[in-house]
């Protein structure tokens, strides 16, 4: 009954979304304020209905209602509650419902916060959001309905993929979707601006918080996925340039470029067409990602069950939204008037270089990901484009971006005189080279390690210097304090984010260049020596979990003859799906990770195959990303982002 209610409400929300799309759009055309005002009510209602619909499906999962086909296929009564819940979005149909929930949530939020924005603009934005909702809700209702019943339900569900039962993996889709769908807001604002025919600095100010929010969530979502892969997949790797990973990375790159180009758009009222294009492209990458995961066109470990008919529908959506948007862009953006000029060597100029590089990077990742498809279509032969290609191509592309990023916050707007900065830049350069050389010499590094470390320190020192200079380090304490307090949060945001990138680069460089690994067959009591650790394989047990049985090994870890920890890698077997997974055991601290994987047991001689990895500074990868996210959060909490969304009185207080 509850399921049917949920189904009904979803259908109802389709109608409301249709109204949300049509009425405000017509209202804008004929200039009817009343029609335009209906947009917020539609948005609120649409969200409430989808929310209840979502909760109805959630109820079916929580109560393990196997008469609902989706629950029967994807759940199991023995699953822990949290995984029953996350199982809702661990499949094609449910994840789409989550997508729509987030979309309508964003629409409702725009309706609520956008009360002080020009009515015409908000109406159009909500209208486009409504159209997107119509497209996706009909996709769900007509091809991927999660509420379908099974008339002769089984007593038990068909289980689940045991790999999906992990906390990191469970929460990674919601964050990722908050990012993907958040980009729809920038998209809708862009379409609205094109339709109105005007993009001004106020428009940029209003869109920016939404872009930042989407960026923050996208960063978190991608990081969670990587973190999960690192902890669970047993190879110490965290990024594989897999098509679906790339499908999330491309919008991230485009959004990063968008955040930087919108700074120029706001400051100088120029680069507007480009900014709009980026917003369209970023959201299109989201849609493209949806297509890749669900159509089965590319091989990926992440793919949902491939279904070409669904692929066709999504392609239609892509054509409608991306094609339509790009066509509108081509027609209308030449009419956008440009603002003031700036010199190529200036803060704006540096931001343009950032955009060139990040856009080229996104385009390159796109080409690399789709290349197997092109070759197959053109010559019916198969090629692979894997990590070696992407690393060979992406890293060199990023080098100039990092080089410039270190000192570009020191550049002045409009026209920068570099000779003023020479001393500082050279100082930072020499210091970075020195530190890098010492480290590479002490620890015996390769040229690539040198490059990576240099870039990381260069960016770190440049960023720290710049913010220290702004605060006035070396001056009187009162000056420093007052400057620190008055410095806008977005300045801190920028520095934190750039610092995060530096930490990330150092983490990646060190953990890959100085990684040590051992792969051996050992028996009980054997010792393994890696770096300055000694591991003793002390025991081996059989244990049982809620839906698995496992072999658990116990390793004692010694450093300098003192036992510092024990690690318990496992090898789990899930009888319901006949799958064996390996649960690595990791000993983490700020400076390194010790990672132990239990492999197969050789039944003949009772030897177990073991892999041990030592990855120095691996957690700096996550620290760096956390800093980036913090930077984003600081930026978005800046007062200026509330401009236009709150009443003037509140701000003045």
């Amino acid at each position, binding site marked *: 009954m509850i399921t049917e209610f949920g189904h009904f409400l979803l259908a109802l929300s389709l109608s409301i979304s249709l109204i949300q799309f049509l009425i405000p759009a017509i209202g804008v055309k004929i200039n009817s304020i009343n029609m335009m005002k209906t947009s917020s009510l539609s948005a609120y209602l649409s969200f409430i209905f989808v929310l209840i619909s979502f909760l109805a499906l959630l109820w079916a999962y929580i109560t393990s209602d196997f008469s609902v086909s989706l629950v029967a296929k994807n759940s199991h009564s023995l699953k822990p509650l949290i995984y029953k819940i996350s199982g809702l979005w661990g499949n094609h149909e449910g994840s789409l419902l989550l997508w729509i929930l987030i979309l309508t949530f964003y629409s409702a939020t725009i309706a609520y916060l956008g009360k002080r924005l020009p009515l015409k603009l908000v109406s159009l934005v909500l209208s486009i959001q409504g159209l997107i909702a119509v497209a996706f809700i009909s996709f769900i209702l007509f091809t991927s309905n999660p509420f379908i019943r099974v008339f002769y339900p089984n007593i038990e569900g068909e289980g689940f993929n045991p790999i999906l039962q992990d906390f990191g993996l469970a929460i990674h889709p919601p964050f990722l979707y908050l990012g993907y769908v958040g980009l729809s807001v920038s998209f809708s604002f862009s379409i609205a601006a094109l339709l109105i025919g005007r993009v001004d600095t106020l428009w940029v100010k209003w869109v920016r918080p939404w872009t930042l929010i989407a960026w923050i969530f996208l960063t978190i979502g991608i990081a969670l996925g990587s973190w999960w892969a690192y902890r669970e997949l047993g*190879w110490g*790797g965290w990024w*594989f340039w*897999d098509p679906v990973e790339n499908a999330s990375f491309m919008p991230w790159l485009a959004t990063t470029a968008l955040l930087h180009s919108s700074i120029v758009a706001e400051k100088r009222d*120029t*680069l507007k067409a480009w900014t709009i294009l980026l917003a369209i492209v970023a959201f299109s990458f989201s849609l493209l990602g949806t297509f890749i995961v669900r159509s089965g066109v590319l*091989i*990926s*470990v992440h793919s949902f069950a491939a279904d070409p008919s669904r692929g066709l529908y999504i392609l239609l959506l892509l054509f409608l939204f991306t094609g339509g948007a790009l066509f509108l862009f081509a027609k209308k953006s030449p009419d956008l008037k*440009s603002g*003031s*000029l700036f010199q*190529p060597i200036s803060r704006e100029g540096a931001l*343009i270089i950032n*955009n*060139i*590089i990040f*856009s*080229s*990077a996104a*385009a*390159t990742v796109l*080409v*690399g990901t789709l*290349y197997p498809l092109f*070759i197959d279509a053109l*010559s019916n*032969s*198969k*090629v*692979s*484009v*894997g*990590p*070696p*290609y992407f690393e*060979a*191509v992406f890293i*060199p*592309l990023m080098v100039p971006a990092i080089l410039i990023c270190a000192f570009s916050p020191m550049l002045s707007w409009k026209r920068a005189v570099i000779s003023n900065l*020479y001393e500082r830049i*050279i100082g930072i*350069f*020499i210091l970075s*080279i020195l530190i890098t*050389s010492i480290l*590479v010499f002490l620890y*015996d*590094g*390769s*040229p690539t390690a*040198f*490059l990576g470390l240099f870039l990381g320190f260069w960016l770190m020192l440049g960023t720290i210097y710049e913010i220290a200079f702004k605060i006035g380090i070396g001056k009187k304490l009162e000056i420093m304090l007052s400057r620190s307090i008055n410095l806008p949060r977005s300045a801190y945001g920028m520095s934190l984010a750039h610092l995060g990138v530096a930490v990330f680069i150092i983490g990646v460089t060190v953990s890959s260049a100085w990684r040590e690994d051992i792969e051996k067959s050992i028996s009980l009591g054997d010792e393994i020596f890696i770096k300055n650790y000694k591991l003793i394989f002390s025991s081996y047990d059989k244990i049982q979990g809620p839906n698995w049985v496992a072999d658990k090994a116990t390793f004692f870890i010694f450093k300098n003859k003192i036992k510092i920890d024990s690690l318990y890698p496992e090898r789990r077997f899930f009888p319901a799906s006949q799958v064996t997974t390996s649960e690595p055991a990791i000993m983490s601290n700020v400076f390194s990770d010790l990672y132990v994987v239990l492999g*197969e047991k050789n039944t003949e001689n009772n030897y177990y195959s073991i892999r041990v990895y030592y990855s120095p500074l691996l957690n700096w990868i996550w620290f760096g990303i956390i800093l980036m996210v913090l930077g984003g959060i600081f930026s978005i909490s800046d007062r200026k982002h509330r401009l236009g969304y709150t009443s003037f009185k509140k701000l003045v207080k």
Partner: protein
Amino acid sequence: MYKCLLIFLVLFSSISAISKEKNDSLVAKELFEELRCLVCQNQSISESDAPLAKDLKLIIIEQLNEGKTKTEVKSFLVNKYGEFILFKPTFSLKNIFLWMSPIIFLIFGIFLTYRFYYFSSVNIQNSEKLTAFEKRKLKSILNKDVK
């Protein structure tokens, strides 16, 4: 400025010279990571537990021990399984668009940027010239002030 670049280059190249010497097992490991497992196609043969992956590893080690180079081993496998097995696409004419794409995009980006600077400066120059009407108006305003 150039001194710094020089220092950088010297340090960089000297480090390359001191680089570790490669031995067989290292080459084997590199190969394992560069080849796709054909059974578990999302993994390299290094990562894959599939029986075929194990067999391929053995064959690779055998061939390296026989003295074959990395390139020779790779071309043997490509002969049998096609370029699909290589994670790094070959530098052939077929793949030229793939390898050149980052440079193409960069050049295109630089070209667009150049156009942007050029045209906006032209626009500003044009708009900086006063029209005849504006000139007269300016004159009248200035004359008013003088009075």
